[in-house]
Protein backbone atom coordinates (compact mmCIF):
# COMPACT_ATOMS: atom_id res chain seq x y z
CA UNK A 1 0.00 0.00 0.00
CA UNK A 2 2.94 2.36 0.55
CA UNK A 3 3.64 2.09 -3.16
CA UNK A 4 0.07 3.12 -3.98
CA UNK A 5 0.35 6.16 -1.71
CA UNK A 6 3.67 7.12 -3.26
CA UNK A 7 2.32 6.69 -6.80
CA UNK A 8 -0.78 8.71 -5.94
CA UNK A 9 1.34 11.57 -4.61
CA UNK A 10 3.53 11.49 -7.70
CA UNK A 11 0.59 11.32 -10.11
CA UNK A 12 -1.24 14.16 -8.38
CA UNK A 13 1.88 16.30 -8.42
CA UNK A 14 2.42 15.61 -12.10
CA UNK A 15 -1.17 16.34 -13.08
CA UNK A 16 -1.08 19.47 -10.93
CA UNK A 17 2.05 20.81 -12.62
CA UNK A 18 0.57 20.05 -16.05
CA UNK A 19 -2.66 21.87 -15.23
CA UNK A 20 -0.78 24.75 -13.61
CA UNK A 21 1.03 25.42 -16.86
CA UNK A 22 -2.17 25.60 -18.94
CA UNK A 23 -3.20 28.94 -20.35
CA UNK A 24 -6.72 29.01 -19.00
CA UNK A 25 -6.73 30.74 -15.61
CA UNK A 26 -9.33 28.43 -14.07
CA UNK A 27 -7.48 25.28 -15.13
CA UNK A 28 -4.30 26.78 -13.81
CA UNK A 29 -5.89 27.54 -10.43
CA UNK A 30 -7.23 23.98 -10.27
CA UNK A 31 -3.69 22.76 -10.94
CA UNK A 32 -2.51 24.68 -7.90
CA UNK A 33 -5.25 23.06 -5.80
CA UNK A 34 -4.22 19.57 -6.98
CA UNK A 35 -0.56 20.24 -6.13
CA UNK A 36 -1.54 21.47 -2.71
CA UNK A 37 -3.51 18.28 -2.10
CA UNK A 38 -0.59 16.16 -3.29
CA UNK A 39 1.55 17.89 -0.68
CA UNK A 40 -1.06 17.35 2.01
CA UNK A 41 -1.05 13.64 1.17
CA UNK A 42 2.74 13.68 1.34
CA UNK A 43 2.63 15.24 4.81
CA UNK A 44 0.11 12.63 5.91
CA UNK A 45 2.36 9.89 4.54
CA UNK A 46 5.30 11.28 6.50
CA UNK A 47 3.48 10.23 9.69
CA UNK A 48 4.02 6.52 8.93
CA UNK A 49 0.65 6.27 7.17
CA UNK A 50 0.73 3.23 4.93
CA UNK A 51 -2.90 3.08 3.82
CA UNK A 52 -3.74 -0.16 5.65
CA UNK A 53 -4.89 1.07 9.03
CA UNK A 54 -6.62 4.37 9.74
CA UNK A 55 -4.32 7.38 9.73
CA UNK A 56 -4.51 7.76 13.49
CA UNK A 57 -3.20 4.26 14.22
CA UNK A 58 -0.42 2.25 12.68
CA UNK A 59 -0.64 -1.33 11.33
CA UNK A 60 -0.21 -2.91 14.76
CA UNK A 61 -3.02 -0.81 16.20
CA UNK A 62 -0.76 1.56 18.08
CA UNK A 63 -1.26 5.30 18.18
CA UNK A 64 0.51 6.80 15.18
CA UNK A 65 2.35 10.11 15.06
CA UNK A 66 -0.23 12.88 15.36
CA UNK A 67 1.96 15.83 14.42
CA UNK A 68 1.80 15.40 10.60
CA UNK A 69 -1.97 15.37 10.84
CA UNK A 70 -1.88 18.65 12.71
CA UNK A 71 0.39 20.02 9.99
CA UNK A 72 -2.02 18.82 7.30
CA UNK A 73 -4.97 20.46 9.05
CA UNK A 74 -3.13 23.78 9.30
CA UNK A 75 -1.99 23.53 5.69
CA UNK A 76 -5.55 22.77 4.53
CA UNK A 77 -6.95 25.78 6.37
CA UNK A 78 -4.27 28.09 4.99
CA UNK A 79 -4.58 26.82 1.44
CA UNK A 80 -8.37 27.14 1.62
CA UNK A 81 -7.99 30.81 2.48
CA UNK A 82 -5.41 31.18 -0.24
CA UNK A 83 -7.54 29.60 -2.95
CA UNK A 84 -10.58 31.62 -1.97
CA UNK A 85 -8.43 34.67 -2.59
CA UNK A 86 -7.04 33.35 -5.87
CA UNK A 87 -10.57 32.74 -7.14
CA UNK A 88 -11.73 36.19 -5.97
CA UNK A 89 -8.83 37.80 -7.80
CA UNK A 90 -9.54 35.73 -10.91
CA UNK A 91 -13.11 37.01 -10.79
CA UNK A 92 -11.96 40.64 -10.71
CA UNK A 93 -9.34 40.06 -13.39
CA UNK A 94 -11.65 38.25 -15.81
CA UNK A 95 -14.21 41.03 -15.36
CA UNK A 96 -11.65 43.74 -16.08
CA UNK A 97 -9.72 42.06 -18.88
CA UNK A 98 -12.63 40.18 -20.51
CA UNK A 99 -10.47 37.12 -21.03
CA UNK A 100 -9.50 33.89 -19.31
CA UNK A 101 -6.24 33.48 -21.20
CA UNK A 102 -3.18 33.90 -18.98
CA UNK A 103 -1.13 35.15 -21.91
CA UNK A 104 -3.39 38.17 -22.29
CA UNK A 105 -3.12 39.18 -18.65
CA UNK A 106 0.06 41.16 -19.10
CA UNK A 107 -0.90 44.81 -19.20
CA UNK A 108 1.59 45.76 -16.49
CA UNK A 109 4.46 45.04 -18.82
CA UNK A 110 5.94 48.08 -20.51
Amino acid at each position, binding site marked *: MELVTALAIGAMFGIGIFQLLRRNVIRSAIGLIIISNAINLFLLASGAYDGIAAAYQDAVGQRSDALPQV*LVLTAIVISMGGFAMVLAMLYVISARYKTSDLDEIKRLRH
Partner: protein
Amino acid sequence: MNDHLIVLPIVIPLAGAAVGLLLHNRLRWQRYVTWLAITTSLFFAGLLLWHVFVAGETIALEMGGWAGPADITLVADPLSAFMAFMSQLVLWAGITYGMGCKDKCARYPTFFPLFLTLAVGLTGTMLTGDLFNMFVFIELMVISGTVLTALSDDYFGPEAAFKYFYISLFAALFLLLACGSLYVSYGTLNMADLAQRIAADPGRPMLPMAVAMLMAAFMIKSAVVPFHFWQPDFHTAAPTPVHAVLSSVVVKVGIYGFIRMNSLLFVDYAATIQMILLVMGAFGVFFGGLGAVGTFDAKRMLAYSTLGQLGFILVGIGWGTPMALAAALIYAFNHSLIKAAMLMLAGSVASRAPVKTANFAKITGLGKVTLPAGVLFLLGGMALAGLPPTNGFLSKLTLFRSGIMAESYLSLAIIGFGSLITLVYVGRAFQRIWWEALPEGVVPKPQGDRLIAPAILIGLCLVLGLWGTPLLQAADTITIWLSSADHYIQAVLGGAALLTP
Protein backbone atom coordinates in the same frame (compact mmCIF):
# COMPACT_ATOMS: atom_id res chain seq x y z
CA MET B 1 9.18 37.83 32.97
CA ASN B 2 11.86 39.28 30.71
CA ASP B 3 11.49 36.30 28.43
CA HIS B 4 7.98 37.34 27.50
CA LEU B 5 9.38 40.46 25.89
CA ILE B 6 9.79 38.44 22.69
CA VAL B 7 6.03 37.97 22.33
CA LEU B 8 5.26 41.69 22.34
CA PRO B 9 6.47 42.68 18.82
CA ILE B 10 4.19 39.96 17.44
CA VAL B 11 1.16 40.31 19.70
CA ILE B 12 0.87 44.11 19.81
CA PRO B 13 0.36 44.56 16.02
CA LEU B 14 -2.08 41.64 16.07
CA ALA B 15 -4.10 43.28 18.86
CA GLY B 16 -3.87 46.58 17.00
CA ALA B 17 -5.27 44.93 13.86
CA ALA B 18 -8.20 43.47 15.84
CA VAL B 19 -9.00 46.82 17.47
CA GLY B 20 -8.59 48.53 14.11
CA LEU B 21 -11.16 46.23 12.53
CA LEU B 22 -13.61 47.03 15.34
CA LEU B 23 -13.11 50.71 14.55
CA HIS B 24 -13.82 50.21 10.84
CA ASN B 25 -16.31 53.06 10.67
CA ARG B 26 -14.17 55.50 12.67
CA LEU B 27 -11.20 55.80 10.36
CA ARG B 28 -9.47 58.60 12.25
CA TRP B 29 -9.41 56.53 15.44
CA GLN B 30 -8.32 53.49 13.47
CA ARG B 31 -5.28 55.40 12.24
CA TYR B 32 -4.38 56.52 15.75
CA VAL B 33 -4.68 52.97 17.09
CA THR B 34 -2.58 51.61 14.21
CA TRP B 35 0.15 54.15 14.71
CA LEU B 36 0.14 53.60 18.46
CA ALA B 37 0.36 49.82 17.98
CA ILE B 38 3.26 49.92 15.53
CA THR B 39 5.13 52.52 17.61
CA THR B 40 4.78 50.45 20.79
CA SER B 41 5.79 47.37 18.90
CA LEU B 42 8.86 49.14 17.46
CA PHE B 43 9.74 50.23 20.99
CA PHE B 44 9.60 46.66 22.24
CA ALA B 45 11.56 45.39 19.24
CA GLY B 46 14.21 47.97 20.16
CA LEU B 47 14.11 46.80 23.76
CA LEU B 48 14.58 43.24 22.51
CA LEU B 49 17.56 44.39 20.47
CA TRP B 50 19.00 46.11 23.54
CA HIS B 51 18.37 43.02 25.62
CA VAL B 52 20.18 40.77 23.14
CA PHE B 53 23.09 43.01 22.15
CA VAL B 54 23.82 45.18 25.20
CA ALA B 55 22.75 42.93 28.03
CA GLY B 56 24.01 39.96 26.01
CA GLU B 57 21.17 37.55 26.78
CA THR B 58 19.43 35.56 24.08
CA ILE B 59 15.80 34.69 24.65
CA ALA B 60 14.19 31.37 23.81
CA LEU B 61 10.60 31.19 24.93
CA GLU B 62 8.62 27.97 24.68
CA MET B 63 5.07 28.91 23.85
CA GLY B 64 2.46 27.11 25.90
CA GLY B 65 5.05 26.19 28.51
CA TRP B 66 5.82 22.67 27.29
CA ALA B 67 9.40 21.73 27.87
CA GLY B 68 11.65 20.25 25.25
CA PRO B 69 11.68 20.46 21.46
CA ALA B 70 8.09 19.26 21.05
CA ASP B 71 6.55 22.74 21.07
CA ILE B 72 6.79 26.00 19.18
CA THR B 73 9.70 28.11 20.30
CA LEU B 74 10.22 31.81 19.74
CA VAL B 75 13.91 32.64 19.63
CA ALA B 76 15.60 36.02 19.79
CA ASP B 77 19.25 35.38 19.05
CA PRO B 78 21.36 38.26 17.66
CA LEU B 79 20.38 37.54 14.02
CA SER B 80 16.65 37.30 14.73
CA ALA B 81 16.57 40.37 16.97
CA PHE B 82 18.51 42.39 14.39
CA MET B 83 16.25 41.35 11.51
CA ALA B 84 13.08 41.86 13.56
CA PHE B 85 14.15 45.36 14.58
CA MET B 86 15.01 46.21 10.97
CA SER B 87 11.59 45.02 9.81
CA GLN B 88 9.74 46.91 12.50
CA LEU B 89 11.65 50.10 11.75
CA VAL B 90 10.73 50.05 8.06
CA LEU B 91 7.15 48.97 8.81
CA TRP B 92 6.85 51.91 11.19
CA ALA B 93 8.04 54.24 8.44
CA GLY B 94 5.65 52.60 5.96
CA ILE B 95 2.63 53.08 8.22
CA THR B 96 3.66 56.67 8.97
CA TYR B 97 3.86 57.29 5.22
CA GLY B 98 0.50 55.58 4.70
CA MET B 99 -1.13 57.96 7.18
CA GLY B 100 0.00 60.97 5.16
CA CYS B 101 -0.59 59.60 1.68
CA LYS B 102 -3.29 60.74 -0.71
CA ASP B 103 -4.14 57.32 -2.15
CA LYS B 104 -7.80 56.38 -2.00
CA CYS B 105 -6.91 52.88 -0.88
CA ALA B 106 -5.43 54.21 2.38
CA ARG B 107 -8.96 55.26 3.35
CA TYR B 108 -10.27 51.73 2.88
CA PRO B 109 -11.33 50.37 6.30
CA THR B 110 -9.10 47.29 6.19
CA PHE B 111 -5.96 48.99 4.88
CA PHE B 112 -4.27 49.65 8.22
CA PRO B 113 -5.33 46.41 9.96
CA LEU B 114 -3.85 44.51 6.99
CA PHE B 115 -0.66 46.51 7.33
CA LEU B 116 -0.47 45.42 10.96
CA THR B 117 -1.01 41.75 10.09
CA LEU B 118 1.81 42.15 7.56
CA ALA B 119 3.93 43.34 10.49
CA VAL B 120 2.87 40.30 12.52
CA GLY B 121 3.81 37.91 9.72
CA LEU B 122 7.15 39.53 9.02
CA THR B 123 8.26 39.84 12.64
CA GLY B 124 7.02 36.34 13.41
CA THR B 125 9.00 34.86 10.50
CA MET B 126 12.17 36.40 11.88
CA LEU B 127 11.54 35.43 15.50
CA THR B 128 10.18 31.91 15.23
CA GLY B 129 12.35 28.89 15.93
CA ASP B 130 10.14 26.36 14.21
CA LEU B 131 10.10 25.63 10.50
CA PHE B 132 6.37 24.97 10.15
CA ASN B 133 5.53 28.02 12.21
CA MET B 134 7.70 29.98 9.80
CA PHE B 135 5.51 28.68 6.95
CA VAL B 136 2.39 29.91 8.76
CA PHE B 137 3.85 33.36 9.38
CA ILE B 138 5.07 33.62 5.77
CA GLU B 139 1.58 32.78 4.53
CA LEU B 140 0.09 35.45 6.80
CA MET B 141 2.57 37.95 5.42
CA VAL B 142 1.93 36.97 1.80
CA ILE B 143 -1.85 37.10 2.14
CA SER B 144 -1.76 40.54 3.81
CA GLY B 145 0.66 41.85 1.18
CA THR B 146 -1.51 40.53 -1.63
CA VAL B 147 -4.71 42.10 -0.36
CA LEU B 148 -2.92 45.41 0.20
CA THR B 149 -1.73 45.31 -3.42
CA ALA B 150 -5.09 44.29 -4.83
CA LEU B 151 -6.63 47.32 -3.07
CA SER B 152 -4.34 49.62 -5.03
CA ASP B 153 -5.61 52.70 -6.84
CA ASP B 154 -3.87 51.38 -9.94
CA TYR B 155 -6.37 49.75 -12.31
CA PHE B 156 -4.02 46.81 -12.78
CA GLY B 157 -3.57 46.19 -9.04
CA PRO B 158 -5.43 42.84 -9.08
CA GLU B 159 -3.20 41.55 -11.88
CA ALA B 160 -0.10 42.42 -9.86
CA ALA B 161 -1.54 40.85 -6.72
CA PHE B 162 -2.55 37.74 -8.65
CA LYS B 163 0.95 37.24 -10.04
CA TYR B 164 2.54 37.74 -6.64
CA PHE B 165 0.14 35.48 -4.83
CA TYR B 166 0.30 32.69 -7.38
CA ILE B 167 4.07 32.51 -7.24
CA SER B 168 4.22 32.95 -3.48
CA LEU B 169 1.64 30.25 -2.87
CA PHE B 170 3.71 27.93 -5.04
CA ALA B 171 6.83 28.86 -3.05
CA ALA B 172 4.99 28.20 0.20
CA LEU B 173 4.03 24.75 -1.08
CA PHE B 174 7.73 24.05 -1.62
CA LEU B 175 8.42 25.17 1.94
CA LEU B 176 5.74 22.74 3.09
CA LEU B 177 7.35 19.93 1.07
CA ALA B 178 10.68 20.73 2.73
CA CYS B 179 8.98 20.60 6.16
CA GLY B 180 7.53 17.19 5.31
CA SER B 181 10.86 15.84 4.03
CA LEU B 182 12.71 17.00 7.12
CA TYR B 183 10.03 15.69 9.46
CA VAL B 184 10.00 12.26 7.87
CA SER B 185 13.80 12.06 8.11
CA TYR B 186 14.44 13.57 11.52
CA GLY B 187 11.13 13.61 13.38
CA THR B 188 11.23 17.24 14.42
CA LEU B 189 10.66 20.70 13.01
CA ASN B 190 12.26 22.75 15.76
CA MET B 191 15.23 24.39 14.03
CA ALA B 192 17.71 23.89 16.87
CA ASP B 193 16.73 20.26 17.36
CA LEU B 194 16.76 19.73 13.59
CA ALA B 195 20.27 21.20 13.30
CA GLN B 196 21.47 18.90 16.07
CA ARG B 197 20.00 15.80 14.47
CA ILE B 198 21.16 16.67 10.93
CA ALA B 199 24.70 17.15 12.22
CA ALA B 200 24.51 13.77 13.98
CA ASP B 201 23.22 11.89 10.91
CA PRO B 202 23.68 13.75 7.60
CA GLY B 203 23.15 10.70 5.36
CA ARG B 204 19.34 10.54 5.16
CA PRO B 205 18.14 10.29 1.52
CA MET B 206 15.49 13.02 1.83
CA LEU B 207 17.97 15.64 3.10
CA PRO B 208 19.31 16.95 -0.25
CA MET B 209 15.73 17.23 -1.49
CA ALA B 210 14.78 19.29 1.55
CA VAL B 211 17.78 21.57 1.00
CA ALA B 212 16.77 22.10 -2.63
CA MET B 213 13.12 22.79 -1.74
CA LEU B 214 14.07 25.30 0.95
CA MET B 215 16.46 27.02 -1.46
CA ALA B 216 13.71 27.30 -4.07
CA ALA B 217 11.20 28.62 -1.54
CA PHE B 218 13.54 31.30 -0.18
CA MET B 219 14.74 32.27 -3.64
CA ILE B 220 11.19 32.93 -4.79
CA LYS B 221 10.52 34.82 -1.56
CA SER B 222 13.38 37.22 -2.07
CA ALA B 223 13.13 37.37 -5.90
CA VAL B 224 16.64 36.13 -6.65
CA VAL B 225 17.21 36.61 -10.36
CA PRO B 226 16.03 33.47 -12.15
CA PHE B 227 12.93 33.54 -9.91
CA HIS B 228 12.27 37.25 -10.16
CA PHE B 229 9.85 37.59 -13.09
CA TRP B 230 6.82 38.50 -10.97
CA GLN B 231 8.59 41.13 -8.93
CA PRO B 232 8.85 44.24 -11.17
CA ASP B 233 5.24 43.86 -12.38
CA PHE B 234 4.00 43.44 -8.86
CA HIS B 235 5.91 46.38 -7.47
CA THR B 236 4.83 48.80 -10.17
CA ALA B 237 1.17 48.50 -9.26
CA ALA B 238 1.32 48.27 -5.45
CA PRO B 239 0.35 51.34 -3.37
CA THR B 240 3.44 53.32 -2.37
CA PRO B 241 3.55 52.55 1.40
CA VAL B 242 3.01 48.84 0.70
CA HIS B 243 5.55 48.82 -2.09
CA ALA B 244 8.12 50.50 0.16
CA VAL B 245 7.74 47.81 2.81
CA LEU B 246 7.53 44.83 0.45
CA SER B 247 10.51 45.78 -1.65
CA SER B 248 12.78 46.53 1.29
CA VAL B 249 12.09 44.24 4.24
CA VAL B 250 9.82 41.46 2.97
CA VAL B 251 12.47 40.40 0.47
CA LYS B 252 14.87 40.06 3.42
CA VAL B 253 12.96 36.96 4.56
CA GLY B 254 14.86 34.98 1.95
CA ILE B 255 18.17 36.48 3.09
CA TYR B 256 17.35 35.51 6.67
CA GLY B 257 16.48 32.00 5.51
CA PHE B 258 19.74 31.60 3.56
CA ILE B 259 21.82 32.72 6.54
CA ARG B 260 20.00 30.29 8.81
CA MET B 261 20.46 27.45 6.28
CA ASN B 262 24.15 28.19 5.92
CA SER B 263 25.05 28.63 9.54
CA LEU B 264 22.59 26.46 11.40
CA LEU B 265 20.55 23.88 9.53
CA PHE B 266 22.73 22.54 6.72
CA VAL B 267 26.29 23.30 7.74
CA ASP B 268 27.45 20.27 5.75
CA TYR B 269 25.95 21.69 2.56
CA ALA B 270 27.14 25.25 3.24
CA ALA B 271 29.85 25.17 0.54
CA THR B 272 27.36 24.13 -2.17
CA ILE B 273 24.73 26.63 -1.06
CA GLN B 274 27.30 29.42 -0.97
CA MET B 275 28.49 28.62 -4.47
CA ILE B 276 24.94 28.74 -5.85
CA LEU B 277 24.25 32.01 -4.02
CA LEU B 278 27.48 33.54 -5.32
CA VAL B 279 26.66 32.73 -8.95
CA MET B 280 23.04 33.84 -8.68
CA GLY B 281 23.99 36.96 -6.76
CA ALA B 282 26.57 38.03 -9.32
CA PHE B 283 24.08 37.37 -12.11
CA GLY B 284 21.46 39.33 -10.19
CA VAL B 285 23.72 42.36 -9.76
CA PHE B 286 24.33 42.39 -13.50
CA PHE B 287 20.75 41.73 -14.58
CA GLY B 288 19.08 43.97 -12.00
CA GLY B 289 21.36 46.90 -12.84
CA LEU B 290 20.80 46.61 -16.58
CA GLY B 291 17.07 46.08 -16.10
CA ALA B 292 16.84 49.22 -13.98
CA VAL B 293 18.60 51.27 -16.66
CA GLY B 294 16.15 50.04 -19.28
CA THR B 295 12.89 50.95 -17.53
CA PHE B 296 10.56 53.88 -18.16
CA ASP B 297 8.94 54.06 -14.75
CA ALA B 298 10.50 55.30 -11.51
CA LYS B 299 8.88 52.64 -9.30
CA ARG B 300 9.72 49.87 -11.76
CA MET B 301 13.29 51.11 -11.89
CA LEU B 302 13.57 50.82 -8.12
CA ALA B 303 12.02 47.35 -8.24
CA TYR B 304 14.74 46.20 -10.67
CA SER B 305 17.26 47.94 -8.46
CA THR B 306 16.10 45.72 -5.60
CA LEU B 307 17.05 42.67 -7.68
CA GLY B 308 20.53 44.10 -8.10
CA GLN B 309 20.96 45.11 -4.47
CA LEU B 310 19.83 41.68 -3.28
CA GLY B 311 22.52 40.31 -5.55
CA PHE B 312 25.12 42.25 -3.56
CA ILE B 313 23.85 40.72 -0.31
CA LEU B 314 23.85 37.21 -1.80
CA VAL B 315 27.40 37.65 -3.07
CA GLY B 316 28.35 38.64 0.49
CA ILE B 317 26.76 35.48 1.89
CA GLY B 318 28.28 33.48 -0.96
CA TRP B 319 31.86 34.45 -0.16
CA GLY B 320 31.22 32.86 3.17
CA THR B 321 34.03 34.44 5.19
CA PRO B 322 32.97 35.96 8.54
CA MET B 323 33.80 39.42 7.27
CA ALA B 324 31.72 38.96 4.10
CA LEU B 325 28.80 37.75 6.21
CA ALA B 326 29.08 40.85 8.40
CA ALA B 327 29.20 42.98 5.25
CA ALA B 328 26.06 41.25 3.93
CA LEU B 329 24.21 41.98 7.18
CA ILE B 330 25.26 45.64 7.14
CA TYR B 331 24.24 45.81 3.50
CA ALA B 332 20.84 44.26 4.25
CA PHE B 333 20.12 46.78 7.01
CA ASN B 334 21.21 49.78 4.96
CA HIS B 335 19.42 48.62 1.84
CA SER B 336 16.15 48.34 3.78
CA LEU B 337 16.34 51.95 4.95
CA ILE B 338 17.53 53.36 1.62
CA LYS B 339 15.16 51.46 -0.64
CA ALA B 340 12.10 52.21 1.50
CA ALA B 341 12.96 55.92 1.51
CA MET B 342 13.64 56.02 -2.25
CA LEU B 343 10.36 54.29 -3.06
CA MET B 344 8.44 56.67 -0.81
CA LEU B 345 10.06 59.62 -2.57
CA ALA B 346 9.25 58.21 -6.02
CA GLY B 347 5.68 57.63 -4.82
CA SER B 348 5.36 61.14 -3.44
CA VAL B 349 6.46 62.59 -6.79
CA ALA B 350 3.99 60.29 -8.57
CA SER B 351 1.24 61.60 -6.30
CA ARG B 352 1.93 65.12 -7.64
CA ALA B 353 1.28 64.08 -11.23
CA PRO B 354 -2.09 65.12 -12.68
CA VAL B 355 -3.00 61.43 -13.03
CA LYS B 356 -1.10 59.37 -10.51
CA THR B 357 1.74 57.55 -12.26
CA ALA B 358 5.47 57.10 -11.91
CA ASN B 359 6.13 56.90 -15.66
CA PHE B 360 9.18 59.06 -16.47
CA ALA B 361 7.46 60.59 -19.49
CA LYS B 362 4.61 61.80 -17.26
CA ILE B 363 6.62 63.01 -14.27
CA THR B 364 9.38 64.87 -16.13
CA GLY B 365 10.08 68.13 -14.36
CA LEU B 366 7.48 67.55 -11.66
CA GLY B 367 10.22 67.80 -9.05
CA LYS B 368 10.24 71.57 -9.51
CA VAL B 369 7.34 71.79 -7.07
CA THR B 370 8.86 69.51 -4.42
CA LEU B 371 12.43 70.61 -3.84
CA PRO B 372 12.72 68.95 -0.37
CA ALA B 373 11.92 65.61 -2.02
CA GLY B 374 14.70 66.35 -4.52
CA VAL B 375 17.26 66.88 -1.78
CA LEU B 376 16.17 63.66 -0.07
CA PHE B 377 16.19 61.75 -3.38
CA LEU B 378 19.71 62.96 -4.11
CA LEU B 379 20.93 61.83 -0.68
CA GLY B 380 19.11 58.52 -1.04
CA GLY B 381 20.54 58.03 -4.53
CA MET B 382 24.03 58.66 -3.18
CA ALA B 383 23.37 56.07 -0.48
CA LEU B 384 22.07 53.57 -3.06
CA ALA B 385 25.16 54.06 -5.22
CA GLY B 386 27.45 53.91 -2.20
CA LEU B 387 28.87 57.43 -2.00
CA PRO B 388 30.01 58.94 1.31
CA PRO B 389 28.82 60.40 3.72
CA THR B 390 25.86 57.99 3.63
CA ASN B 391 25.50 54.51 5.05
CA GLY B 392 25.57 53.04 1.54
CA PHE B 393 29.28 53.85 1.46
CA LEU B 394 29.79 51.90 4.65
CA SER B 395 28.09 48.78 3.29
CA LYS B 396 29.86 48.92 -0.09
CA LEU B 397 33.22 49.51 1.63
CA THR B 398 32.91 46.51 3.93
CA LEU B 399 31.61 44.32 1.09
CA PHE B 400 34.42 45.21 -1.33
CA ARG B 401 37.02 44.87 1.39
CA SER B 402 35.82 41.41 2.29
CA GLY B 403 35.86 40.53 -1.41
CA ILE B 404 39.50 41.54 -1.67
CA MET B 405 40.29 39.53 1.47
CA ALA B 406 38.46 36.53 0.00
CA GLU B 407 40.44 37.00 -3.26
CA SER B 408 37.37 36.52 -5.41
CA TYR B 409 38.24 38.98 -8.15
CA LEU B 410 35.77 37.99 -10.88
CA SER B 411 32.71 38.48 -8.68
CA LEU B 412 34.35 41.63 -7.33
CA ALA B 413 34.61 43.00 -10.87
CA ILE B 414 30.95 42.17 -11.55
CA ILE B 415 29.67 43.90 -8.42
CA GLY B 416 31.94 46.86 -9.14
CA PHE B 417 30.23 47.18 -12.51
CA GLY B 418 26.87 46.85 -10.75
CA SER B 419 27.73 49.75 -8.45
CA LEU B 420 28.55 51.98 -11.39
CA ILE B 421 25.27 51.07 -13.07
CA THR B 422 23.46 52.12 -9.87
CA LEU B 423 24.93 55.59 -10.24
CA VAL B 424 23.74 55.71 -13.87
CA TYR B 425 20.09 54.90 -13.25
CA VAL B 426 19.75 56.96 -10.06
CA GLY B 427 21.35 59.90 -11.84
CA ARG B 428 19.02 59.52 -14.78
CA ALA B 429 15.94 59.46 -12.56
CA PHE B 430 17.13 62.53 -10.65
CA GLN B 431 17.79 64.38 -13.89
CA ARG B 432 14.42 63.52 -15.42
CA ILE B 433 12.41 64.50 -12.36
CA TRP B 434 14.26 67.42 -10.79
CA TRP B 435 16.59 68.83 -13.43
CA GLU B 436 14.49 69.12 -16.55
CA ALA B 437 11.94 71.88 -17.00
CA LEU B 438 8.26 71.26 -16.41
CA PRO B 439 6.57 70.78 -19.80
CA GLU B 440 3.94 73.31 -20.89
CA GLY B 441 0.39 72.61 -19.84
CA VAL B 442 1.17 70.16 -17.04
CA VAL B 443 -0.39 71.35 -13.80
CA PRO B 444 0.97 69.47 -10.78
CA LYS B 445 -1.35 68.81 -7.88
CA PRO B 446 -0.86 71.36 -5.11
CA GLN B 447 -0.40 68.71 -2.45
CA GLY B 448 1.22 65.33 -2.53
CA ASP B 449 2.09 62.67 0.01
CA ARG B 450 3.79 63.86 3.18
CA LEU B 451 7.55 63.56 3.27
CA ILE B 452 8.05 62.98 6.98
CA ALA B 453 8.64 59.20 6.78
CA PRO B 454 11.27 59.29 3.99
CA ALA B 455 12.91 62.27 5.73
CA ILE B 456 13.31 60.23 8.90
CA LEU B 457 14.71 57.25 6.96
CA ILE B 458 17.19 59.37 5.00
CA GLY B 459 18.17 61.08 8.26
CA LEU B 460 18.92 57.65 9.72
CA CYS B 461 20.98 56.83 6.60
CA LEU B 462 23.10 59.94 7.17
CA VAL B 463 23.47 59.25 10.90
CA LEU B 464 24.56 55.67 10.22
CA GLY B 465 26.95 56.89 7.51
CA LEU B 466 28.66 59.31 9.88
CA TRP B 467 28.49 57.15 13.00
CA GLY B 468 28.38 53.55 11.83
CA THR B 469 30.08 51.98 14.84
CA PRO B 470 26.93 50.50 16.44
CA LEU B 471 25.93 48.84 13.16
CA LEU B 472 29.42 47.44 12.60
CA GLN B 473 29.59 46.14 16.16
CA ALA B 474 26.16 44.54 15.83
CA ALA B 475 27.19 42.80 12.59
CA ASP B 476 30.38 41.65 14.31
CA THR B 477 28.43 40.19 17.24
CA ILE B 478 26.06 38.38 14.87
CA THR B 479 28.96 36.94 12.88
CA ILE B 480 30.64 35.60 16.01
CA TRP B 481 27.30 34.15 17.13
CA LEU B 482 26.75 32.47 13.76
CA SER B 483 30.27 31.05 13.57
CA SER B 484 29.10 27.92 15.39
CA ALA B 485 25.67 26.29 15.23
CA ASP B 486 26.16 25.17 18.84
CA HIS B 487 25.46 28.68 20.13
CA TYR B 488 21.92 28.60 18.79
CA ILE B 489 21.32 24.99 19.81
CA GLN B 490 22.56 25.67 23.33
CA ALA B 491 20.41 28.78 23.61
CA VAL B 492 17.24 27.00 22.54
CA LEU B 493 17.60 23.53 23.97
CA GLY B 494 19.83 24.45 26.90
CA GLY B 495 21.97 21.38 26.48
CA ALA B 496 18.97 19.05 26.66
CA ALA B 497 19.69 15.48 25.68
CA LEU B 498 18.98 14.35 22.13
CA LEU B 499 15.48 12.91 21.98
CA THR B 500 15.23 9.72 19.98
CA PRO B 501 12.74 9.98 17.11
